[in-house]
């Protein structure tokens, strides 16, 4: 493949992923509203389109046409950049995730991964962590009490969960011996029994918990918890800038679902009679549903409880898990 071809292929992939994932993120808001509604014995959006399917479109029009204003005492450039950081870092993180197995179309073999970084998983986690600069900067620049509280909670959250994420992924990585997501996937190629979750159940649970904190989902949605700090970092935002935070959040959820299914749930290997592509889409859908499910079922925690959980419970557990894995590997 020549350089030009490579560049063209990459650009096409980028556009495709950008388009599909942002559409999915929009659709995710619809799904979330529906699933939450059904779990709470409601119907959810019903009026726009059949079963409210066009609600996403209506919301999009609303967000795009809303006035985009910046509060007077805020720091204007940073206030305006912050949502971009959120959305951009979410998509950049997605760039290093192999979304589907290789397939052939029109006689060309397609690798559905934009940038095959050979330390893929670290790259994804690192860039996702950078995404928390969005709420931080947004909260600090908007010169609003609630915004500032949201920003402070962002710092707490990042410093709490990031260590746990890293350590929980460490044990599976020690098994595989590579940081590349494709290698991790190929390690589990021999079917259902080879999934890493059976060898590392603790790591899986820890990774999911830290993932909830990372994507700012309900048990740990401290940053913009309405009942406590009006809307947290997003208090002063409106229109598409506010929408970009949401696209970022839902993209992060999708990325995390991909990561969890790649690292722990057998990735895009064939699963029984299911072809690989379908298998991973099913797994990702289930994990996405799980995100919504927990939102309907579980209460959220206080910031101090999150710190307590991460530093005093999850961190020691992760370390013990790594030590035991190391001992087993050495024997």
């Amino acid at each position, binding site marked *: 493949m020549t350089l030009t071809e490579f560049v063209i292929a990459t650009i096409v992939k980028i556009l495709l992923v950008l388009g599909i994932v942002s559409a999915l993120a929009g659709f995710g808001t619809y799904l979330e509203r529906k699933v939450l509604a059904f779990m709470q014995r409601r119907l959810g959006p019903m009026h726009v389109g059949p079963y409210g399917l066009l609600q996403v479109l209506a919301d999009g029009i609303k967000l795009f046409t809303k006035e985009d204003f910046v509060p007077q005492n805020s720091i204007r450039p*940073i206030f305006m950049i912050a949502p971009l950081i959120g959305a951009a870092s979410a998509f950049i993180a997605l760039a290093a995730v192999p979304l589907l197995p290789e397939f052939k179309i029109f006689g060309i073999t397609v690798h559905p991964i934009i940038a095959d970084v050979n330390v893929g998983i670290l790259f994804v986690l690192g*860039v996702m962590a950078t995404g928390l600069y969005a709420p931080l900067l947004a909260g600090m620049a908007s010169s609003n009490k609630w915004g500032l509280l949201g920003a402070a909670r962002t*710092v707490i959250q990042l410093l709490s969960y990031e260590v746990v994420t890293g350590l929980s992924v460490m044990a599976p990585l020690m098994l595989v011996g590579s940081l590349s997501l494709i290698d991790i996937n190929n390690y589990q190629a021999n079917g259902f029994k080879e999934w890493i979750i059976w060898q590392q159940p603790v790591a899986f649970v820890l990774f999911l918990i830290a993932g909830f904190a990372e994507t700012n989902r309900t048990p740990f949605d401290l940053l913009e918890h309405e009942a406590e700090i009006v809307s947290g970092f997003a208090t002063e935002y409106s229109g598409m800038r506010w929408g970009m935070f949401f696209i970022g959040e839902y993209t992060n959820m999708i990325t995390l679902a991909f990561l969890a299914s790649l690292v722990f749930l057998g990735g895009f290997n064939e699963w029984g009679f299911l072809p690989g592509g379908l298998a991973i889409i099913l797994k990702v859908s289930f994990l996405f549903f799980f995100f919504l499910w927990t939102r309907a079922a579980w209460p959220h925690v206080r910031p*101090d409880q999150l710190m307590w959980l991460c530093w005093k419970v999850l961190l020691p557990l992760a370390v013990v898990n790594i030590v035991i894995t190391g001992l087993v590997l050495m024997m």
Partner: protein
Amino acid sequence: MFEAIAFYLFSAVTISMFIITVMSKNALYSMSALAAGMIMISGFFFLLDADFLGVVQIIVYTGAVMALYAFGMMFFDATRDVKENIRAPKLVFLLSGMTALLLVLAFVAPIVSDHIQALYPVVDGVENPQAVGIVLFTKYLVPFEVAAVMLLVAMIAGIILAGKKMDESLTLKIDGDEEFQNKGSK
């Protein structure tokens, strides 16, 4: 060609970010520029095929600058300019500039006189993280361990400094609440 473009792009962005860091009076601008510059540096590592170092740069500095933000949030109103009280700005500028220049000269000197060479050339078939690990645990084992011990010492010192009243929970004060209860019964 792409590498050259990327290199100059990253250099320009990094340098301008650090200039903002130094020059800006606003704490929020400085910190954001610092974070951006640190993350942009990882671009150079990626250009040099040192993926692992690049990612580590991103992860470490995301967290580190985030902690800096926490302190900034506690000490300043980040939306206002900081008023500095410098008696002799020229002297400060001169001294810090000279120090920076000296540092650059010290680092550049061996490159200029061709006395620098890679002692651990890249081994084929060994991936990036493994290469880092090999160097870290053979040639640089002692500095690595010393750094680890230093961090441990710093951590213990921090815990002891901060943790004198660690057993008292601020949210679950019940035994120590006599004052509150007395107030209520008065």
